[in-house]
């Protein structure tokens, strides 16, 4: 196989001394159990594809796509190996060699045809003039009520955002292995969103605007922290750190400080902050392996229940989706009563008080 994307990572893959420290709390190996499922296994497979010892097969592709890209392995790796970049390169090589996943292809087709991951032609940004460019992202564009609430929060705190036409940031093309499509998409994106700064709602879009488009993107929680008034909602919750938040953007304190200002007590889960567990929604597995995604989310919900809190707050639309599904299943199975809410609901509630 022509492993043109993996080639530049040969040294990085040799840097991996295969110590297996990445096994610790990897959400996929926890569920699957096989060494093949962990980061070391994925690097080993990538190395085999690059060296030519392995010819690509569907099972190799399946293993390399069974990763939530939660970056937990990177945070555990004492050699600082760029695990996610290696996996993404392997995925790109596999896609170029005919191993694209069908559901992933469908998402990419949607983006190319409609500019939106869902192919949602009614997902139109509420265009308005303002001071700071806002990037909404596909998931919130398809949740117009949440978007309105976010914009109202910003306005109430004196931030007037400028909303224009936008298309998907292109992150799915990157993580699902469609590198060539991504390069074309980036050009189109730049034309519609030529800004150097932006406020964002979605942690994943924030990461990709920064890393993929060189935009100085700031998540809404970073922007509003100092402007929020202190109120007392008198609630007890636990907070789920989205991977792109705590490990991607290193945003750990802001949501907790915001909740503290709102009079919300946060009780931490066993895995929290930089060591947070994944919700199971990342890396494309929500689309291609929903069973694995559900299992990972159920484990996270159990951690939330173990805190004694009835509400789990998060700040990512994907985490919200996976955790809500897992919470419903857990509540039905165990008779528990855990509720998942997005942080914007709590902030809005606080601002109305």
């Amino acid at each position, binding site marked *: 196989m022509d492993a043109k994307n993996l080639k530049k990572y040969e*040294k990085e893959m*040799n*840097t991996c*001394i295969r110590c*297996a420290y990445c096994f610790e709390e990897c959400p996929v190996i926890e569920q699957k*159990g*096989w060494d*093949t499922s962990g980061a070391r296994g994925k690097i080993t497979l990538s190395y085999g594809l690059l060296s030519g010892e392995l010819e690509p097969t569907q099972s190799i592709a399946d293993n390399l796509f069974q990763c939530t890209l939660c970056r937990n392995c990177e945070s555990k790796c*004492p*050699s600082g190996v760029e695990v996610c970049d290696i996996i993404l390169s392997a995925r790109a090589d596999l896609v170029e060699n005919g191993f694209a996943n069908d559901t992933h292809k469908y998402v990419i087709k949607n983006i190319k045809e409609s500019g939106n991951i869902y192919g949602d032609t009614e997902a139109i940004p509420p265009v308005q003039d303002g001071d700071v460019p806002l990037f909404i992202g596909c998931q919130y564009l398809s949740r117009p009520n949440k978007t309105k609430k976010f914009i109202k929060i910003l306005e109430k705190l004196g931030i007037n955002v400028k909303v224009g036409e936008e298309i998907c940031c292109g992150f799915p093309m990157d993580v699902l292995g469609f590198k060539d499509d991504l390069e074309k998409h980036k050009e189109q994106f730049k034309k519609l969103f030529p800004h150097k700064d932006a406020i964002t709602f979605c942690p994943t879009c924030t990461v990709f605007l920064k890393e993929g488009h060189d935009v100085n993107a700031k998540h809404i929680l970073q922007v509003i922290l100092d402007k929020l008034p202190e109120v007392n909602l008198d609630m007890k919750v636990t907070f789920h750190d989205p991977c792109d938040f705590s490990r991607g953007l290193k945003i750990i304190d802001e949501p907790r400080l915001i909740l503290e200002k709102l009079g919300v007590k946060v009780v931490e889960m066993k895995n929290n902050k930089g060591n947070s567990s994944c919700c199971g929604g990342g890396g494309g597995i929500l689309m291609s392996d929903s069973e694995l995604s559900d299992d990972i989310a159920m484990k996270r919900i159990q951690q939330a229940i173990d805190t004694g809190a009835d509400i789990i707050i998060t700040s990512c639309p994907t985490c919200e989706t996976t955790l809500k599904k897992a919470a419903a299943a857990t509540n039905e199975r165990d008779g528990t009563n855990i509720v998942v809410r997005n942080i914007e609901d709590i902030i809005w509630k606080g601002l109305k008080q």
Partner: protein
Amino acid sequence: MAELNIDKLIEIVGETNVSDDIADLYVYSSDASVHQAMPSVVVRPGRIEEVQDIVKYANQNKIPVIARGAGSGMSGHTVPIDGGIVLDMKRMNRILEIRPEDLLCKVEPGVINDELNRALKPHGFFFAPMPSSGMICTIGGMIGTNASGNRAVKYGATRDVVLGLKVILANGDLVTLGTNTKTDASGYQLARLIVGSEGTLGIVVEATLLLSPLPKFKAMAVANFDKLEDAGNAISKVMASGITPSMVELMDNVAITAVNKALDLGLPDVSAIVIFECDGMVKEAVDYELNAITKICEEHNGAGIKVTDDPGEMARIYEGRKKLFPSLSRFGDGLVSTSLADDMAVPVSKIAVAVHEIHEIAKRNNVVMSAYGHCGSGLIHTKILMDPTKESQWEDAKNAVKETYEFVHSIGGTTSGEHGIALSKAPAMKEERKDSLDMMRAIKKALDPNNILNPHKLMDAPDDWASATGLRYNVRGGQ
């Protein structure tokens, strides 16, 4: 070897726990060593009876069986040199009993070291052997290699804390070895024989482990040395002074550079840093020991001596040491860390001379070698930093490994302190233990006449480690 009957294995453990898929075979063909060889199948048993049935089947058909935990061994222990069945033991991960009143616990082999310690903590006890890989390494793997870790200097290695074992022999029989007591004079100490046998004599399916009460007080002293000799002499003096530190860790300059690059710890650029830890139930006793250590370090030109009993600070210091081995790959100069000459032990008074010679050997052979380890027990770890894609570097590495072990043996040291022998250290061990090889082979033959249990390791490993299996690196020509 007869042709494998996958259906028979599926019948024993179920379809989801058997794989002969190329992706799994390739991943299970290597571990943290330089070696690589493909298994025929990977099987994940969950119960003792399943292990028995698999081994019985393998014995009848003369198929190799290689037990594997996390696959974090550095010498090729779980690399199936003759193919066969790799048994991934991680599903057998139950803590069966915790009996604080008897100072023991019973566990399955797939239990992870740190998880066991988390479970023991509420009882006020801990399992003393703590390898740096404690967050992922399994008790079964630790038993296989007689792992020790940094607190072995006070609490002993795995062999010292295994009271009893349940083992599946090569014919599939389940035997109970050892007992539940700390003292045992009832015949041959067969449980102790199994510890460190690297899966060549039987497959451990349950272990009875001795527990230690958690110390109430801990403190650390960290000393910097401009001369390796001073560091070595200070360690030797401390160990001979009647003090029993709970940790004595040395890091040489190569190690310091790598840890600083990888973890940004800002350690001083000196020849050696030595970390001492003392623990106990009485604060004054811990303080007394640490004061005495500080004095000895000062007498041996130790500088910048920092003493702390702050748990956060101690954890930060320990973290750097714990992650040292993988950090070495960030040393720089286009070199990466390979698990070669990774482990040895020398008499405590010879640490400085050994570390000095290791650096000379590295220079002579165009590689970089770091020396660090649990030096209170004479244990030194090295790694060879090289460009593994260049054929010429493997020749350099071969020479460096040979010279290192020749020197270690010449000063009365031994080939492995805690990582075990397997493939890459076998030539050195065979040289060192010439007189024991026939006895080892006789034991192996008696217990495993068909040579199915992790065959061709230890005394039966090939004489040239570099060609014993394929190398897991993409080696090309060039200088």
